[in-house]
Each structure stands twice: as C-alpha cells, then as structure tokens.
C-alpha cells in the first residue's frame, strides 16, 4: 500500500502538462542521440546536463527531461545497430549480432519494431523491480557506516574495472586518475587548498561535467578526425513498417527471461547495461541451442539483448539511487546530474526527498510509454536522422558541448580543461584504458575520502576498523573477487564476433 501511495505522489509530481511535454521532448532527443553512431547515452546526457542546468530548470523538471533522454538513448541505440551494423552505444553491441542479419534479409522494419517492444518490456519490468527493491535496499543502507561505505565504493571500482577492461592494471590506473583529480581543490575540513599547484582556477576543484563532456564528446571528435568519418552511411534500406505480432508472441518468454537476467546484472554495482545485454543474449543462445539460429537473424537474438540492456539500465538505477553508487557509465552521468541539482543520492534521499525519487520513477514509467508510442510509428524519422553526415554532426556536437560548458561557467579555463580531457580521453581509449572509472573516480572521490576519514576519526586511526563489520568484510571479499575473477573468466566470457559483410 505504501508503495502505491508513493507512486501516486510520484505521478502527481510528474504528470503535469509541462513535465509531460519535457518527457516527450526528452524521449525524442534521446532517441536521436542514441541512434547516432558515436553518440551514446553517456555522451548525450553529459552534453545536455550543462545546457539543462543553464536553462534554470527546477530539480523535478530537469530530472524528468534527463531521464527521458537516458531511456530514449537506450531505445535509440538499437536503430543504428540494426540498420548500419554499428552499435550506437556499447550495450547495443549485442543487438548487431542478429539485428543486422535480419535487416539484410529484408526485415529491417520487423527487427526495429520487435526490438522496440523488447526494450519496452525490459524497461517496464526493470522499473517495477526498481519500485519494489529500491525502498528495501534503502532501509538496509541505513545500517551502513563509514567503513561499509568505503568498502562499497571500492567494490564499485573493482567490479566496474573488472568488467570494463581487458587489463586490470589499466582499469585501476583509470580509477586512480579520476580519484586523483577529485582530490584537487580546497579541503573541506582544513579550508586549505590541496594539490592545486597554486593555480587559483583549481581552488574550486575540477568540475565533473567538464571531465565527462571532454572524455566522451571531445574525444569522439578526435576519433572521427582520425577515421575521416567513414562508416556512417546507411547500409540497409527500410521499407514498410508493420507490427510483427507473430515474432512478438514467439519471443515473449525470451523477453521476460532476458529482463530478469538484465535486471540482476544492472543491480550489481559497477556492472551495468553492457553486461546485462551480454548475459541475456548468451543465456537465450544456450537455451535455444544449435537450432535457435542465433547469429543469422533470429528474432529471439534481437529480443534478448534489447530487453536485457534496457532492463539493466533500469536495474542500474537501484544502487545509484539507494547507495549513491552508480552501476554503469550512464548512471554515473545521471549521478552527476543529481549532484548538479544538489540532490545527494543515498538512503536519506528516500526519506527526505520522496517527491524527487518517486517523481523520477513515475517519469521513467511515463518515458517508457512515450517511447513505445513514439518509436513504432516514427521510426522512419529517426532513420532519416541517421543520414546526417559526420562532417556536420561532429562539429555540431563539439560546438554544443563547448557552448554548454561555457554557458554554465563562463570561464575560458574550463574550456581549456575540456580540450585537455578530450586529449586524455583519446589517448586512454587508444591504449584500451576504460574511461568510465575515471568519471566514477571524479564523481565519488570526495565521498570515498569522506568515508575513509570518518572511519579513521571514529577508530582513532586504526585501519582494522575498515574490516570491523560483517557487511564491510562481505564488500571487501566481493570487491577482490570482482576484480580478480574476470582474469580467469575472460576465456569463457569472450564476446562473440560481430557479423561481417
């Protein structure tokens, strides 16, 4: 009953004509962002945060807009996967495996609608899971003290690093870069500057928005300059779009299973949507066996990763909202949004700002319905947008990113740092160093250090205090396992090869 009352509160916040309009706009922009190759959800949300902040939207409105963009981008990622064999974002990678072959068989429209429905089912089930699980977890999280939080942050870095990279040392370095940057600025307890090198511009610290936009959007520009924007033309023609009821009925059990798998993967801190779509696809592949025809355009091979990926995106919101620990790159960016709006995620969020939490959940449900309605009849419009050439798109994205940052801070120094982060992002990605731990480090560094400092103050400097409770020890064990296990599982967890022409 309490849940229903909370939901009613959420809908009363999110269902005004104004916020509905924002949700529709957000879904539209988000789908475009997700569909454009090289502009994933993290990118898109990151570029739009400074702009939505400079617009002066209030917390609820900004949250509705950006979550709509987030879900929209998760939907949109499949369009370029299916039509171009280019994943619009990393989680959509698995959709290319069966989506593109199916589109080549002349069933592009069917593939797009089926994946749209699968996305809807996945996202809907995940939102319901979020509604049920998040308040429970929030209550458990009240038991956490500084030792538990420190171990939890560590766990997030370890599992994320384990999953995100092929080399543990590189993901550890990435996390250290982010954490190291987070330490820069005036120290809150002493009021004295730390590690600024005497540069006055750095006294406020490094703005995480500058880092995110630089590492994602500006670095992407450099990659396009390197490749001269090759591979951005339409590969498959889309003719009539009808609703393939047969496929939807046939794959419905697959969607349910994949949503379950995806949700669990999303809830694990640090794992996120890529793992969700991967596990969902592999599970269905092994259930179907040889006769399933996976990899040759099987409908189930489209439904599984799409349901899994959208469900994981919803699941990733659980640790983000209740513990303040994001489960994926995009939720890290959403966490950045909340922090920009001066909302601190964590168990207290559910107690102190129920309107924000439940408004967010209600807007997720609204965005999901809007997206389904928008995506089936309007898919042709989004396909048109895919043909925007790279020589307009990338300069445009760059200019939007820089202007967004400039409108927010008005400082040339931030713009120069933006370029610097772009260069850093280019080299890191070239060297196969994951950039998401860097972002996570900048976002969580302050909180992680606070937890450590409080633990040390409480225990008079006894390091054993960090291992003093069963929950904390559990997190430490999980962190070490999450960091070490992928080294041994790499052979088993190898990603299947994409379809080649």
């Amino acid at each position, binding site marked *: 009953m309490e849940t229903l009352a909370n939901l009613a509160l959420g809908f009363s916040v999110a269902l005004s004509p104004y916020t509905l309009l924002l949700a529709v706009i957000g879904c539209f922009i988000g789908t475009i962002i997700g569909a454009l190759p090289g502009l994933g959800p993290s990118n898109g949300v990151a570029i739009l945060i400074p*702009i939505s902040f*400079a617009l002066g939207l209030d917390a609820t409105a900004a949250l509705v807009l950006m979550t709509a963009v987030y879900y929209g981008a998760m939907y949109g990622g499949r369009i370029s996967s299916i039509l171009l064999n280019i994943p619009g974002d990393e989680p959509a990678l698995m959709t290319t495996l069966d989506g593109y072959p199916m589109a080549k068989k002349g069933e592009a429209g069917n593939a797009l609608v089926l994946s749209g429905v699968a996305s809807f089912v996945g996202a809907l089930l995940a939102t319901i899971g979020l509604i049920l699980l998040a308040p429970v977890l929030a209550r458990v999280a009240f038991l956490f003290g500084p030792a538990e939080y420190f171990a939890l942050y560590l766990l997030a870095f370890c599992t994320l690093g384990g999953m995100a990279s*092929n*080399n543990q*040392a*590189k993901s*550890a*370095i990435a*996390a*250290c*870069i982010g954490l*190291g940057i987070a*330490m820069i600025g005036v*120290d809150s*307890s*002493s*009021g*004295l500057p*730390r*590690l600024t090198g005497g540069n006055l511009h750095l006294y406020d610290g490094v703005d995480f928005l500058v880092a995110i936009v630089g590492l994602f959007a*500006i670095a992407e*520009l*450099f990659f396009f*300059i*390197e490749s*001269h*924007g090759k591979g951005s033309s339409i590969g498959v023609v889309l003719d009539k779009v009808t609703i393939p009821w047969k496929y939807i009925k046939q794959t419905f059990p697959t969607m349910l299973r994949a949503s379950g798998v995806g949700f669990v993967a999303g809830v694990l801190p640090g794992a996120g949507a890529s793992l969700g779509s991967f596990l969902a696809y592999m599970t269905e592949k092994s259930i179907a066996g040889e006769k399933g025809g996976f990899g040759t355009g099987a409908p189930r091979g489209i439904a599984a990763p799409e349901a899994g990926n959208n469900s994981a995106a919803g699941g990733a919101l659980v640790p983000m909202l209740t513990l303040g620990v994001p489960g994926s790159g995009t939720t890290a960016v959403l966490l950045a949004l909340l922090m920009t709006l001066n909302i601190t995620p964590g168990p207290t969020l559910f107690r102190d700002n129920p309107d924000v939490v439940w408004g967010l959940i209600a807007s997720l449900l609204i965005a999901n319905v809007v997206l389904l309605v928008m995506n089936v009849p309007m898919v042709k419009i989004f396909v048109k947008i895919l043909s925007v*050439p*790279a*020589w*307009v798109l*990338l*300069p*445009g994205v*760059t*200019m*939007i990113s*820089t*202007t967004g940052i*400039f*409108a927010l801070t*008005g400082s*040339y120094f931030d*713009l*120069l740092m*933006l*370029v610097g982060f*772009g*260069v850093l992002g*280019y080299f890191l990605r070239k*060297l*196969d*160093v994951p950039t998401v731990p860097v972002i996570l480090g900048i976002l969580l560094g302050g909180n*992680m*250090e606070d937890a*450590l*400092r409080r633990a*040390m*103050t409480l225990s008079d*400097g006894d390091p054993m205090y960090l291992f003093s409770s069963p929950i904390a020890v559990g997190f430490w064990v999980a962190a070490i396992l999450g960091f070490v296990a992928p080294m041994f599982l790499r052979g088993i967890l190898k990603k299947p090869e994409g379809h080649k022409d």
Partner: protein
Amino acid sequence: MASDRIFGLVTLITAVAYIAAATQIQTNFFSGEYLPKLFPIMIGAVAALSSLVLIFKPDPDPDWPMARTWGNLLVAVIVLAVYSVLISPLGFILPTALAAMILSYQISPNSKQAVLAGIGLSLGLFVVFKFILMLGNVVAYRIPTPAKLWDAISILIPFVGH
C-alpha cells in the same frame, strides 16, 4: 608493447610526483595532521603499483595513426584551444563559424561542405541557444580592443599569459 611501457612510465612518474605533492599538503588544527594526506597518498600508491604491472606486462600496441593524422589531430586541438580563449572577447558567431569550418574540413576534406557546415552551425546554434534556450553568456559578437585580444591569446602562450 612499447606504448603500454611508455604509458606505464608516464603514470609511474606522475604517481610518484602526486605522492610527493600529497606529503606537502598543508594541514591545520581542524583537519588533523595526516588525514588530508592519507587518501591522496593511497591513490598515488595504487597508481604506482598498477603502472609497474603495466611496465612488466604490457599489452600489444594499438594502431596508432600515421604522421599526417597526428598533424590533423594537433590542428584540431589548437583550433579548440584558440576557440576557448576567443569566445569571450569575440562573441559566439565568428569563432564558432571558423572552428566548425575547420573541424568539418578535417573530417571530410571538402571546402564547400565545410563552409556550409561552419556558417550553418554557427547561425543555427546561435538562434537555438540565444532565442529558444535563452542561455546566459552567449553573446552574438563583440569587437575587442587589440589589447584585449592579445590578453586572450597570450593565455595560451606558456610563461607569458596568466
């Protein structure tokens, strides 16, 4: 192999420098003697350890771009840096048009397309930012004095700017 070793070495040196800087962090009565230094030193230590692993167990080299592409990338970085300092003294439209033009040309070397992209993006985005989104700090154009222009450019010159 070599790339990862160089990257590891750079990280190692940075990490050691970071630890050294962390030991010099000023403290006072409120913060206690070692707490502001503890976490930065831990970060530096983990980074140093990981970079040693990288030096001894490097991955295969990535495909680095050719010399000409490096030139293009350098041009792009310079364009963006100059753009960053000029957007204040010159306003939005002119620097944006020039920067978008050059970047567009670098992605697809076709001067007609590039001019179109530059002018179109600059005017289009200006209208969106100024009149639809009504963002602050976005000014159409400014006519700076030479001294102001030099001030802005000199930011990019080491030891001359501020």
